[in-house]
């Protein structure tokens, strides 16, 4: 029998999932054997064990996957340590500039500011070629993004330029390129936030207001939210399977948070109607959008979409309950209603689950 090797293009996440499946299979098989439900013939069992050992060996060699729970916990620790290290190194870069800034001529300041992100990218690439887990390249990637943010900020200060949303576009695109280069979700998150600020700021500017006040019109987040949801729907991320989830999560948040605000504070809207009418409009839109999100999430098996949609519906409902009833209703009755609503949502979701099981069967 030939041993199946994971030679096909695979990411570390996919490799880790495969290793987890093998571990789960072994655990379950042990349970079955202990309970006397089924025992594999010695020869078959040995062949499977041997095959899995080879697969795990290969995956570990190529992707440095975690083969046990203890290894997984260590990896989590390393991820936390690398994040903290990146933050600390970014501060080091900032305070380095801060300390020696005034002592160097302008041309050298510019050269230093430009070379810091360039050198960080070179360092990231250097680290990426020498490790499989990308912990160190991730650290240097974050430092590169912080350095470039600092470059844009300090060039602005150095030459007395006013604040501009274009700086966020430049920063976001840079972070996006690095995120796709080393496959780090944290870098993609920075890119998403920066580009969202740019799009929302520009929208605010086109509406006549100063771009920096875009948060005073929460609707300016709807377009970036929709664009974020459109990215995973139109671009396949075969080699970066965790990115679509992040796009959907941030896209939904960019839509849900403004909806929550506008459903309670209508005068922040672009719509030139009485505040109460705007609030009712956004409450209706909120319930509709939340329901669609849950439906799409369940149908497409997007856990984050289902969870966020459900959470949004519950929060929207609770906020409205609070506004309607808190002042006059006895507290025990208020919380009783909240509890009853939670049970109602639970029953609704269970029915949905049951229907899905029937379809699957």
């Amino acid at each position, binding site marked *: 029998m030939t041993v199946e090797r994971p030679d096909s293009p695979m990411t570390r996440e996919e490799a880790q999932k495969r290793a987890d499946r093998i571990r789960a299979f072994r655990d379950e098989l042990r349970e079955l054997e202990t309970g006397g439900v089924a025992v594999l013939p010695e020869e078959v069992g040995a062949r499977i064990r041997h095959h899995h050992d080879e697969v795990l060996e290969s995956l570990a060699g190529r992707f440095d996957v975690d083969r046990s729970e203890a290894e997984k916990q260590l990896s989590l620790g390393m991820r936390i340590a690398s994040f903290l290290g990146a933050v600390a190194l970014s501060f080091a870069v900032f305070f380095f500039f*801060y300390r020696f800034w*005034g002592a160097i001529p302008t041309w050298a300041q510019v050269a230093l500011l430009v070379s810091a992100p360039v050198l960080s990218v070179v360092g990231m690439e250097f680290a990426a070629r020498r490790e499989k887990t990308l912990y160190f390249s991730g650290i240097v990637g974050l430092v*590169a993004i912080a350095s470039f943010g600092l470059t844009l900020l300090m060039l602005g200060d150095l030459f007395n330029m006013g604040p501009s949303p274009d700086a966020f576009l*430049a920063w976001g*695109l840079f972070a996006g*390129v*690095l995120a796709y*280069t080393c496959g780090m979700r944290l870098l993609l998150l920075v890119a998403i936030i920066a580009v969202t600020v740019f799009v929302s700021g520009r929208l605010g500017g086109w509406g*006549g207001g100063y771009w920096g006040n875009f948060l*005073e019109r929460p609707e300016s987040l709807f377009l970036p939210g929709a664009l974020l949801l459109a990215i995973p729907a139109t671009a396949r991320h075969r080699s970066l399977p965790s990115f679509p989830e992040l796009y959907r999560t941030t896209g939904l948040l960019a839509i849900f948070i403004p909806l929550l605000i506008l459903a309670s504070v209508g005068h922040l809207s672009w719509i030139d109607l009485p505040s109460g009418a705007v609030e009712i409009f956004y409450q209706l839109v909120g319930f509709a959008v939340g329901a669609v999100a849950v439906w799409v999430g369940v149908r497409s098996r997007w856990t984050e979409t289902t969870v966020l949609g459900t959470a949004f519906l519950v929060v929207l409902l609770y906020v409205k309950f609070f506004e309607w009833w808190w002042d006059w209703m006895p507290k025990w009755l208020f919380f009783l209603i909240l509890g009853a609503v939670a049970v109602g949502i639970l029953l609704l979701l269970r029915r949905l689950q049951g229907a899905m099981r029937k379809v699957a069967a």
Partner: protein
Amino acid sequence: MRRWGPILAIAWVLVAAAITLLGVARNRAGEPDADVVLTERELSLPGWIEEESNGLALHINWRGPRYPASPDTMWLDRAKLESLGFDCSYPVEAPSALEHYERMLPREVVLVLEYEGEAWRKWIVAWEQQSEGAERKIHESTDAPTRDRRLGEIRGPLERERTSATRLFVVDAGLDLADLRRRYTDRSRYILARGIVAPLIELDADKKIAKPATLRGHVRMLLVDAVHVPHGKTALLDSLVASDRRARQAGASLTVATPGQPGMEERSGPPRYKVRVRWGRRLEPWIVGVEPM
């Protein structure tokens, strides 16, 4: 992406830096839009600098239509707001006028800052008249020890206005830079700078039940409110920063509250330096020289 990503990222850094520097060159090319010699009164040292920091930027001090209003800055009225693009058609008397105008987004405009001009002179005259009136009342109604103390309280701020407060006043605003420059031709006295303006409903404080009284605008901020001091021009300012720091550590108070602007402070005492500043085509300033006074 894995292969080309680092190259793309580096190229992007270089392109972004090049675009920025081209913008700077464009701003500084040709004749400056304004070329003004200001003093410490208008360009103050930062109130506090961390010892670890050795970069320096001078803060631009200005007076004008802020909140709350002062009588000499009422030029930013309803008509001016409309000319700046604000829709002021909603009646000010309407019960929801306050909410309507408060929710209006501020706008970016071009402000005209006048240096040591008519606005400043009027401001000083108004202070003098106010002080004279107050002094008359004190002479008429108080005993000698109280009189000296209260006279000091009145004359001190007036003297600071004459000798150490800023003479830079926002006197006009518009959207068309060329039009403003045609009207304010003296480039050594009128600075055009970008700033943020927002509408404001002023309530009539005299009435027990507050009612919307007037609609006017106020300048929220200058978009560039500090000017970086380039390397080679910091020696004098560094020595002043060091001496101020020593004085503060010794317990001296170098600043006083800015009249009419809660939470703001300004330095008391005559200016110690003058700074030549130019504003370029994109209305971005830069320091040309710093000299002692």
